């Protein structure tokens, strides 16, 4: 097994296969890595209910196996969770998780040699509060009755406890302001090729639809992870058919195209009144610092430039905290949307940060979190 190869695989454990989103391959792979002592711990989401889950670092194989199944309304980010812990860990990660992990490794908070990143194809996640509201308003069902959820062919499907399926297209939901989080709509990383291994259901064809996972190996570590799971008897793989590979590429292209379209829609260029716009948006900030605490690319710690040079008593027209963060994130924002999610006064922070990041990153041709390249600032050399 080596870099660049593609497979279609599924779990050999009946129970995991049934509960898992598509064949339970990811769950089994993580469990096998833990069982065979490849890693000391695995990060999984511990489910509270259909809309909430907390990420936990566990060394219990059964807990890993029990976590099978996908949740679309838990917009967590694992990068900060494993940072500065010096763990030998394997974890599932969406595109933005992977980018966060790579950014943390550039800041020496994560050792990538000890981290096995299982990338998951991601078309977007939803905010739990918005999802509950959406269920009541759009689907006319009680959030408590929901038993399962699924995204298929552009439709978001909720299954209630009485076995009925309720489907509405995502486009329709997003027109009404529900559906995916805003940052997911304009995200263009749908298949995480920057992770060690990229898994997802796109490209699975024929009888296997819904029962298997399409895997692409992106690094030597990823190959080791999958080989270990096969040797341990946790998963079975086969070569994908050409049709599947083509379908996967096509879905990727379409999704990325949609993402770009959303980007143009959200970031309308503003000629005048930009300063006033930013001032208005940041007016309600209560200095809680939650956006910094969750930011997967920030690793300054408690004492940092943004907090130490900010003093409310200055009564500046714009807070120094946000100005410093605008600057820092201009080169490192990965657009994960965590800051908007946690803001207690609902400032659309990701949208503000991205305004700066889009222009700067485009101009300097630097995309954070995609590879090991350091920001251009570190490349300063003597020009003779």
């Amino acid at each position: 097994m080596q870099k660049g190869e593609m497979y279609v695989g599924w779990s050999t454990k009946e129970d995991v296969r049934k509960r898992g989103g598509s064949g339970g391959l990811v769950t089994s792979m993580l469990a096998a890595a833990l069982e065979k002592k490849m890693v000391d711990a695995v990060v999984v989401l511990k489910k509270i209910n259909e809309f909430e889950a907390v990420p936990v670092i566990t060394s219990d194989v059964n807990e890993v196996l029990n976590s099978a199944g996908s949740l679309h309304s838990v917009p967590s980010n694992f990068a900060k969770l494993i940072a500065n812990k010096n763990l030998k860990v394997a974890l599932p990660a969406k595109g933005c998780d992977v980018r966060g992990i790579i950014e943390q490794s550039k800041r020496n908070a994560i050792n990538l040699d000890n981290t096995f990143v299982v990338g998951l194809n991601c078309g977007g996640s939803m905010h739990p509060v918005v999802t509950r509201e959406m269920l009541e308003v759009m689907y006319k069902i009680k959030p408590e009755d929901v038993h399962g959820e699924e995204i298929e062919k552009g439709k978001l499907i909720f299954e209630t406890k009485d076995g009925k399926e309720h489907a509405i297209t995502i486009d329709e939901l997003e027109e009404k302001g529900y559906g995916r989080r805003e940052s997911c709509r304009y995200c263009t990383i749908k298949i995480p090729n920057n992770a060690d291994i990229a898994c997802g259901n796109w490209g699975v064809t024929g009888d296997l639809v819904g029962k298997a996972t399409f895997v692409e190996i992106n690094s030597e570590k990823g190959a080791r992870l999958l080989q270990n799971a096969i040797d341990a008897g946790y998963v079975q793989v086969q070569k994908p058919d050409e049709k599947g590979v083509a379908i996967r590429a096509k879905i990727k292209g379409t999704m990325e195209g949609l993402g770009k379209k959303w980007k143009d829609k959200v970031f309308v260029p503003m000629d005048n009144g930009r300063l006033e716009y930013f001032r208005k948006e940041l007016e309600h900030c209560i200095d809680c610092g939650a956006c910094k605490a969750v930011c997967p690319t920030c690793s300054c710690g408690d004492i940092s430039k943004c907090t130490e040079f900010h003093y409310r008593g200055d009564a500046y027209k714009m807070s120094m905290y946000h100005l410093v963060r605008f600057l820092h994130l201009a080169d490192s924002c990965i657009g994960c949307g965590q800051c908007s999610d946690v803001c207690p006064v609902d400032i659309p922070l990701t949208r503000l940060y991205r305004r700066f990041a889009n222009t700067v990153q485009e101009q300097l041709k630097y995309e954070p979190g995609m590879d090991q390249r350091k920001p251009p600032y570190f490349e300063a050399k003597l020009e003779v």
Partner: protein
Amino acid sequence: MNDSISDGISAEAAAAPKTDGWEPKIVAFCCNWCSYGGADSAGMGRFQQPASARIIRVMCSGRIDPLHVFNAFLEGADAVLVTGCHIGDCHYVNGNDKTKIKYKYLENVAHELGIEKERLQLNWISASEGEKFANFIRDVTEQIKKLGPSPLKPAGVV
């Protein structure tokens, strides 16, 4: 009695700034080895320049953090100038190369934020270029006089 006094002050402060006779405040960051020397030789060569610049000496232009620039704006500067040695002449080998890259970020962020490009300028001035320094300050002062006070200026600061 007290009320009428404070009312009078606040009314004056709230009134639109007078553009006639108004002198902009310009914060100029100068590196110790080149542009600060440039400012010095501007004085020695008796090149006329407006009294609008407030010079802050730093050891190297690479020391200038974008944060200093924003703090200057928030404290009431109408324009901020970043100056240093010519590329290749840095006393610390490549300090100004770093400034150049940092300035790119800063320029983009400041522009996206809505600060006019005249308010933030970069220039390389050597210790012997006294005339260039004086001309630079004069040009910037003219440009800023046309633009008026900075929108980030705190209330009550002239």
